[in-house]
């Protein structure tokens, strides 16, 4: 299916001096797409060339259009020797393939060289003419929109949420090909950049195909990651949520919330109260049809009653909403004529959907959603965090087709799975199955806030996945999600949206683990757990007391250096303990802040040669619906060792901290006026058993471990670890380590006054954002001394590193007070033996302090019912399980025979935590060998520095003083899905860029910090330039998914890889009435700028 790509090279500016003799440059440009190359004329002796070329036309398949970037190379013409490359620009033309996105790419792009960085700018115009409507063609998936945003994009409405899509593509890493030994670093870097660009294009196209198959038109929460597996290859994988999105006309609905709001209330009511609905006939019909599809959760509620099954109410509900003017979600059922109810839904789409239903059901194999925030009413109940990890040994991705060919033929790993059972695909499949089974154990039929990540060190790779088990309102989906056994009686009573999601999804009588439930403190009708951990954002309708705050658990564990299987086994044995400890830390810190729920929980475990790093980040909140957390109780195990004085001092400190935090975060739930007898009784009992203070069970007490065999993940055997009085104390001081632990708990300093911080989209409790926005990226690398470090010592260092980073942010951003650091996204890595790397991307947003309204607790809250159980599911599993087992006998790998002895075998553990959609991926590849190989490479003087000053010594006066109105479009960036005070009127397409920067003159560029500082600044600049060229003025959902930094100071060399992504948008100030973006097409301003520049 052909299309015509047209490109025009307009001009260049600020080019570097390439000819020392004349201090000028004879520049020309090569424009390449696929295998076709065009050249401009040489524009002699100028640093600001005006090529003003003809339109170069490429006639290509749309498949290529999706896969390939347009490659623009700027060169210096040299009569006698080879032409020198100045730098390149890769332009992703995907946004042009979608009618709703950008129509032209036009603007100044930084000319980028992997050795010298940015070297001037070039003005390029790109257009695409597609000859036909494309959706019919198999190989391409033009027109499918991609969004990094993990919620329904602001100017769209979700007609339907289809579900999980995933794909991965593998190739050899050019850096490890034999040819790399003889080519220049520049050539090697460019080969890699180009390959990854190609692979991402292909991946996106394939995902698009899957979406089309499912009947969707968009992918939301698109998360693409690279695994740099070194010798064994390069994996690019992506997950996302397929949706059918309808564009909201900007006039009618200024923002989605107000638009959808009217119907959410009735909808959710209807959901929860079927009997009131009075639509019995419809309901019966639905019941029939929905029980048909073969979904994994076929089993009807075994436990209880509930004659009107849970799903039935929702059907009428969807009907109801569709007949009202909102037409949200119509899910045509197979073999069911629901046509009458469809309302405005477009006919053709519906038919398409119906045709696709069968496929869509198959896709439901994984009822996962990468979204983290949802349309009101979508999320019915939240069970808790589910996660799975597994340790794998990387081996070369055998592929005959890859063999010795040097062409970058891309291979879909799926296509060779038949020959190769040991595939990356199979690995992920396994993990996902496990997640699914964990969710099921929690009585949930879906996983939201789902994300996947890896950590690689040499040949060991930890795969992780996590999400939040939950029950969704099926009216947004096709059938398949409905027939789940849950405690249905809850549906008989309406639960208000502000607390409904807290209600337990699992059956009270048949709970997956022993848990302390209480009646909801908000509606008093249904049961809630005492603590809730999730990977999603706080639902906007949730009722919260006080403010939230960032809570981090940090952990370092030393490990012996080892190779191969021994290493993998050692790591997998350590994982459950790390997870357990991280979890304990989180719980304690949560209690210390007097909060009862975590949102946006993301746990990252990074593997290095001699240590494992664990970092859990989340935003703590006091949910009004949940019981108040108790305090923390200290007890000495052996009274002889530690005096009671000592203990009481610590206890006092803890109590003081809790009191201080309550004040700080404004957590003042009203005192309870009535206790549920059940709870009350529970408290009494505990009080009797314990000494003083609020009773808190020891974390272990609450952790239930599931051991799941991944081969048959359905059977989950439950292991109650401990019941017993000795566990009634939270913290036992039985040795100095314990004391250390407690001290480290208290170390976390609260943010200075005027600051708040969270890792979710927005801060719970703040809703008066003003327009100040400052996105930033910060990277720190810490070198450990080689002294014998203990785990404790390491922990301290790691904790300090994170704390100091936060302190630095507060200090740097102090001029923005009052302000909140949102979406703080930490990624850790162990790039080398003694290095710890922490990279953070976040946004600081100002808010209006005076108008900050705290949502008052609507209902009195019980205090002191501190008994807690967690719905954390601590499932431990043999890590190296099936996939490794295929090649090796399992016992060899794990070193432990399969048994129910949990502690001995634990590879993947889940319990409540891990999410954070965006930056899960920090894999650190050690490429030391590679760097050394590079040793003899030519040195490059820092040309950048000497860039031409008085080049265009124009003899005429410049007509305008240029600093009044800059010619450069201001592009705002944020990791959030919105910019405060503005309204997004158009999504222009996804930005997904991969850059490599290398230097052989590290000292001259200001050392490692100088090198990385300018590289990150360059990456920002290139992102902004691409967005501006698309006609946009902001990037939302920005994330830096990869930052791999390697150095060799002795050789004066360093290399860094950065991968960033986000959504390019046009936004206007909220006050502006109409949708005309204030900035016009940047092309105009640019071309006028060209004139003045010469």
């Amino acid at each position: 299916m052909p299309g015509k790509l047209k490109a025009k090279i307009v001009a260049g500016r600020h080019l570097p001096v390439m000819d020392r003799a004349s201090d000028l440059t004879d520049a020309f440009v090569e424009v390449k797409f696929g295998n076709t190359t065009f050249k401009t004329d040489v524009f002699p002796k100028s640093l600001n060339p005006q090529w003003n070329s003809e339109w170069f036309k490429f006639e290509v398949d749309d498949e290529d259009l999706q896969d390939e970037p347009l490659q623009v190379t700027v060169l210096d013409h040299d009569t006698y020797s080879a032409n020198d490359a100045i730098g390149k620009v890769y332009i992703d033309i995907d946004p042009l393939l979608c009618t709703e996105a950008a129509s032209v790419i036009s603007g100044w792009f930084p000319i980028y060289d992997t050795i010298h960085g940015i070297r001037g700018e070039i003005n390029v115009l790109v257009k695409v003419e597609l000859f036909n409507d494309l959706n019919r063609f198999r190989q391409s998936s033009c027109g499918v929109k991609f969004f990094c945003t993990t919620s329904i994009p602001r100017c769209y409405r979700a007609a339907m949420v289809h579900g999980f899509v995933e794909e991965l593509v593998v190739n050899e890493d050019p850096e490890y090909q034999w040819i790399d030994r003889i080519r220049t670093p520049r050539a090697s870097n460019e080969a890699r950049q180009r390959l990854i660009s190609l692979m991402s294009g292909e991946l996106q196209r394939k995902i698009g195909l899957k979406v089309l198959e499912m009947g969707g038109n968009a992918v939301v929460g698109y998360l693409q990651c690279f695994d740099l597996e070194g010798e064994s290859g390069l994996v690019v994988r992506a997950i996302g949520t397929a949706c059918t999105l309808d564009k909201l006309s900007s006039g009618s609905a200024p923002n989605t919330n107000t638009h959808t709001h009217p119907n959410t209330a009735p909808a959710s009511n209807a959901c929860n109260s079927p009997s009131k609905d009075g639509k019995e006939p419809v309901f019966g019909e639905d019941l029939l049809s929905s029980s048909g599809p073969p979904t994994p959760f076929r089993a009807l509620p075994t436990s209880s009653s509930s004659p009107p099954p849970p799903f039935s109410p929702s059907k009428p509900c969807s009907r109801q909403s569709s007949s009202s003017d909102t037409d949200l979600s119509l899910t045509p059922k197979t073999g069911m004529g629901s046509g009458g109810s469809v309302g405005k839904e477009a006919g053709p789409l519906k038919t398409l959907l119906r045709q696709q239903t069968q496929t869509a059901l198959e896709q439901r194999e994984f009822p996962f959603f990468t979204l983290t925030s949802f349309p009101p009413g979508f999320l019915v109940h939240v069970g808790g965090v589910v996660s799975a990890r597994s340790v794998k040994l990387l081996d070369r991705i055998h592929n005959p087709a890859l063999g010795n060919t040097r062409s970058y033929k891309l291979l879909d790993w799926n296509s060779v799975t038949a020959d190769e059972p040991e595939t990356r695909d199979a690995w992920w499949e396994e993990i996902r199955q496990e997640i699914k089974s964990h969710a099921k154990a929690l009585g949930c039929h879906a996983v939201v806030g789902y994300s996947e990540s890896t950590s690689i060190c040499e040949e060991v790779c930890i795969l992780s996945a996590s999400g939040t088990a939950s029950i969704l309102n099926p009216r947004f989906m096709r059938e398949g999600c409905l027939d789940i056994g849950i405690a249905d009686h809850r549906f008989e009573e309406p639960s208000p949206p502000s607390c409904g999601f807290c209600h337990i999804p699992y059956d009270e009588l048949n709970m997956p683990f022993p848990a302390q439930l209480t009646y909801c403190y908000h509606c008093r009708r249904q049961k809630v757990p005492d603590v809730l951990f999730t990977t999603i954002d706080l639902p906007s309708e949730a009722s919260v007391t006080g403010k939230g705050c960032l809570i981090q658990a940090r952990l370092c564990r030393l490990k012996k250096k080892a190779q191969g299987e021994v290493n993998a086994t050692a790591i997998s044995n350590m994982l459950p303990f790390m997870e357990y400890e991280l979890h304990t830390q989180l719980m304690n810190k949560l209690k210390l802040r007097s909060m009862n729920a975590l949102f946006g929980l993301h746990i990252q475990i990074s593997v290095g040669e001699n240590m494992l790093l664990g970092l859990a980040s989340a935003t703590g909140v006091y949910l009004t619906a949940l019981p108040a957390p108790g305090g923390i109780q200290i007890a000495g195990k052996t009274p002889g060792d530690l005096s009671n004085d000592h203990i009481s001092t610590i206890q006092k400190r803890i109590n003081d901290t809790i009191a201080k935090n309550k004040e700080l975060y404004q957590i003042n739930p009203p005192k309870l006026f009535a206790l549920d007898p059940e709870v009350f009784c529970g408290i009494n009992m505990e009080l009797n058993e314990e000494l003083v203070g609020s009773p808190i069970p020891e974390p272990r007490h609450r952790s239930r471990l599931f051991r799941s065999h991944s081969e048959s993940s359905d059977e989950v055997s439950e292991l109650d670890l401990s019941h017993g009085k000795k566990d009634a104390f939270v913290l036992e001081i039985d040795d100095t380590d314990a004391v250390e632990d407690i001290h480290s708990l208290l170390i976390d300093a609260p943010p200075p006054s005027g600051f708040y911080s969270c890792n979710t989209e927005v801060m719970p409790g703040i809703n008066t954002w003003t327009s100040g926005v400052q996105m930033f990226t910060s990277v720190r690398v810490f070198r450990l001394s080689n002294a014998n470090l203990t785990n404790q010592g390491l922990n301290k260092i790691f904790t300090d590193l994170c704390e100091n980073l936060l302190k630095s942010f507060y200090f740097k951003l102090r001029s923005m007070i009052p302000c909140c650091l949102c979406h703080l996204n930490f990624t850790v890595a162990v790039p080398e033996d003694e290095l710890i790397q922490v990279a953070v991307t976040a946004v600081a947003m100002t808010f209006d302090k005076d108008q900050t309204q705290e949502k008052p607790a609507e209902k009195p809250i019980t205090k002191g019912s501190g008994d807690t159980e967690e719905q954390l599911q601590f499932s431990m599993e043999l890590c190296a399980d099936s996939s490794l087992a295929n090649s090796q006998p399992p016992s060899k790998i794990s070193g432990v025979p399969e048994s129910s002895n949990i502690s001995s075998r634990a590879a993947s553990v889940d319990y409540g935590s891990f999410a954070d959609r965006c930056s899960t991926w920090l894999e650190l590849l050690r490429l030391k060998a590679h760097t050394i190989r590079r040793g003899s490479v030519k040195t490059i003087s820092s040309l950048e520095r000497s860039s031409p000053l008085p080049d265009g010594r124009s003899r005429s006066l410049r007509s305008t003083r240029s600093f009044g109105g800059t010619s450069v479009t201001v592009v705002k960036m944020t990791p959030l899905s919105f910019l405060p005070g503005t309204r997004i009127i158009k999504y222009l397409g996804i930005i997904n860029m991969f850059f490599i920067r290398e230097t052989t003159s590290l000292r001259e560029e200001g050392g490692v910090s100088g090198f990385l500082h300018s590289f990150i600044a360059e990456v920002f600049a290139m992102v902004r330039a691409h967005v501006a060229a698309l006609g946009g003025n902001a990037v939302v959902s920005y994330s830096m998914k990869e930052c791999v930094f390697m150095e060799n100071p002795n050789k004066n060399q360093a290399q860094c890889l950065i991968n960033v992504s986000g959504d390019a948008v046009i936004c206007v100030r909220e006050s502006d009435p109409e949708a005309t973006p204030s900035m016009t097409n940047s092309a105009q301003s640019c071309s006028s700028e060209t004139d003045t520049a010469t």
Partner: protein
Amino acid sequence: MAVELDVFVGNTTIMDEEVYKLWLDGYTVNDAVKVRMEGGVMEECEASADVLLSDTMDQYRTFQMCERLLHSPAKLANQLLFQITPHRQAVLIERYYAFDDAFVREVLGKKLSKGTKKDLDDISAKTSVTLKSCRRQFDNFKRVFKVVEELKGPLVENIRQHFLLSDKLGRDYAAIVFFANNRFETGKRKLQYLTFQDFAFCAGQLINNWTVGAVDHMVEDMDVDLDKEFLQELKELKILITDKDLLDQHKSLVCTALRGKTKAFNEMEANFKNLSRGLVNIAAKLTNTKDVRDFFIDLVEKFIEPCRSDRWTAADMRLYLTHYTNSAHILDTFKHQVVWDRYMGVIKSCIFKMYHD
């Protein structure tokens, strides 16, 4: 055990004006941290010394990366690497091109060459401006000089256009360029009492009245080079002192006008011929480049010092020079009124400015 790499990059480049000042003043990172600690920033945000150090390093790095752009400020507006608000850009540029009066006084009128640059450490020691800052200021002078050297049009305007400077700073740079170009001597001991602003004022007068640009607006170097024709014509003024009659006539006219109006009348009368010879000789010698260089020293030696030793007040000076200038118009045999006015206009205002302690 140490932080090996530490960077912070904002989408909008964060710059602290206080740190910028320290950087411009040539403080090392450690010294800057000390100054900041004493300034009490730490209490402001519960920061520790580490935080302060990290922040200072980051800012210094940012400034270093920006410095290249600051060398041609027009680029700052359309570069893509740093997103800086226009207002902030203006502040950055203005501060970067600002200079210390003590420093500029030392190099004013010197050739902006490598030789002078080598002497910067002496100047640094003398003025207690750090060497780094001296270098920056010197390089700024040199850069501006080089760019405007070959441009047509008014000097001040050119500087403002090319370096996006404020009017005041543009004028100061024009003075510096003008002085450097004509190599006026400003370093002699007798001239030490004069401030940069005194000279800048005089430079403004010379540029506006004595250069080619004062006559023709579109000539190269119009504001940098003195009007040769005019200098030639100045020789004609010699008649005022060589013609005995004319000299006496001039004296009596001035004395008549001054009599009774000032306490210093006697001294004025006694010194008239000397003073008049001094001023006219300065005019007549200006065709020699060497004497142009000594213009200010001559003014001081030949005119200001004698007056000062006679304890003229500033008002006396004003009175005297006004009448001295005006009386020449009444001399019927003196034909060079236009040249005289052009010359004396500048001399008058220069001397007014320079006549202080």
